[in-house]
């Protein structure tokens, strides 16, 4: 009994208020979803965005011009120059990636060829008649010791 009493949630005086609040929020949410789904809302947000772009355009253009002049006077690259460089870097990176993949493929091909040659050499040495002279590895080029 005591355990049961302990497990029960304590009385929360705010609970009825919370339930009312949630019910109100649900109703509000539904009406807002209907509102944002309407043509009028789409039209209003489009108009607001247009107004923002129109109002901010002179400031934006002035800042851009001033920045461009400043950078020119300081003999520094403009935003457009940096963007152009970055685009070229991406192209170079892409070509490097392709070359890297080709090198990997070539490396694998060479490794598999060497493995085949080695296997063939081992097979040939096994096939050679007993007592036959084994091929001696070639000495590296260079001066021989006297």
């Amino acid at each position, binding site marked *: 009994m005591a355990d049961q009493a302990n497990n029960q949630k304590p009385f929360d005086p705010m609970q009825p208020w919370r339930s009312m609040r949630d019910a109100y929020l649900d109703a509000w*949410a539904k009406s807002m979803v209907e509102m944002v789904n309407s043509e009028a809302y*789409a039209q209003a947000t*489009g108009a607001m965005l247009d107004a923002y*772009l129109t109002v901010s355009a002179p400031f934006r253009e002035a800042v851009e011009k001033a920045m461009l002049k400043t950078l020119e006077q300081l003999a520094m690259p403009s*935003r457009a120059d940096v963007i152009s460089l970055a685009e070229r870097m991406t192209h170079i990176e892409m070509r490097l990636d392709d070359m890297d*993949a080709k090198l990997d493929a070539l490396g694998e091909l060479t490794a598999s060829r060497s493995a085949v040659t080695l296997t063939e050499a081992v097979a040939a040495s096994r096939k050679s008649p007993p007592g036959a002279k084994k091929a001696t590895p070639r000495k590296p080029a260079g001066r021989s010791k006297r």
Partner: protein
Amino acid sequence: MAEAPVVTDPFTQAADRLKTLNKVMTTKAAIAQTPKELVWALNKAKLFRYTPVVPAEKRHPVPLLLVFALMNRPYILDLRPGHSFVEYMVAHGFDVYLLDWGAPGPEDKNLQFDDYTLDYMPRAIRKLKAISGSEEFSLLGWCIGAILTSIYAALRPDDGLRNLILLTAPLDFSNKQGLTFARWVDERYFDLDRVLGVFGNMPGEMIDYGAKALKPVENYVTNYLKLWDNLDDPRVVQAWHAMNTWVTDNVPLAGGAFRQLIVDLYRNDRLMKGELVIRGQKVDLRKIRANLLTVIAEGDHITPSCQSESVMTKVSSKDKELFRVSGGHIGIMAGSGASKHTWPHINNWLTTRSERS
């Protein structure tokens, strides 16, 4: 010696709650914790390989590549330990790779679906194949990532794609009445050229506003009240903190890709009509032959089910399944029910189709 009594006076409780509230609102949660290695990068895109935890001989031989949307961070797939799809799939023996598109800069404003699907994805997949040693692979695309994976699968059907999973895929834009976004970006109201002329890329904050404005009360009021009501419950607070960290970490969408999304898809539904042209090639969904699993979130207000259903009749895949799960656009993969419903279904579906052929 008697223990000190636990102080539970209302003032201390209120102070603790405010401290917790301040912490979750002003700090970033520790997310994307599953160990991984960067294996490839191109421009801002990065390919990560998650460190396998299952021995190689017990692992599924077909690797899995995850492709998320362009305008959100992909770590929603690896949100936090114990609540991570990536961690779950790695533990179930998959060799998991994640393609992170990164945040486009002003120099990337002309990037289009063409570049993502024909320059970035094939190269990332080439690297994946080289590392995994497998000629076949599985692709999972979520949201815009599902558009990219569908285009890729249709344009390169012989690339070794064995399994294709599309999560909440916005592919069909024919039902204009059912799509709030379509109404907002209608050419009568939304001046696309002007917006992109000013911003270059579509700012992440504007996209975030658009997504939240679909359900304004839930996103701007109820979400915070839910946190306030549960400030004493550490489990709810942790989950909220991690999700809020992800939700507030927006990236811009490359201008070229945004233009295609609006003009080609939302306004003209070119993908479903078979009229979408990617680098001179028409995207024909009938060329998709890979095994297909389409997952639909029944409560999805961003991608309603009408956008994902019709792809099932377009593809040529013989093995295809439509799986409906209750939950929202993000909730089906990152919500509390994800580990009970969506993840096990994807795991089971993929496991039976990821064995050596």
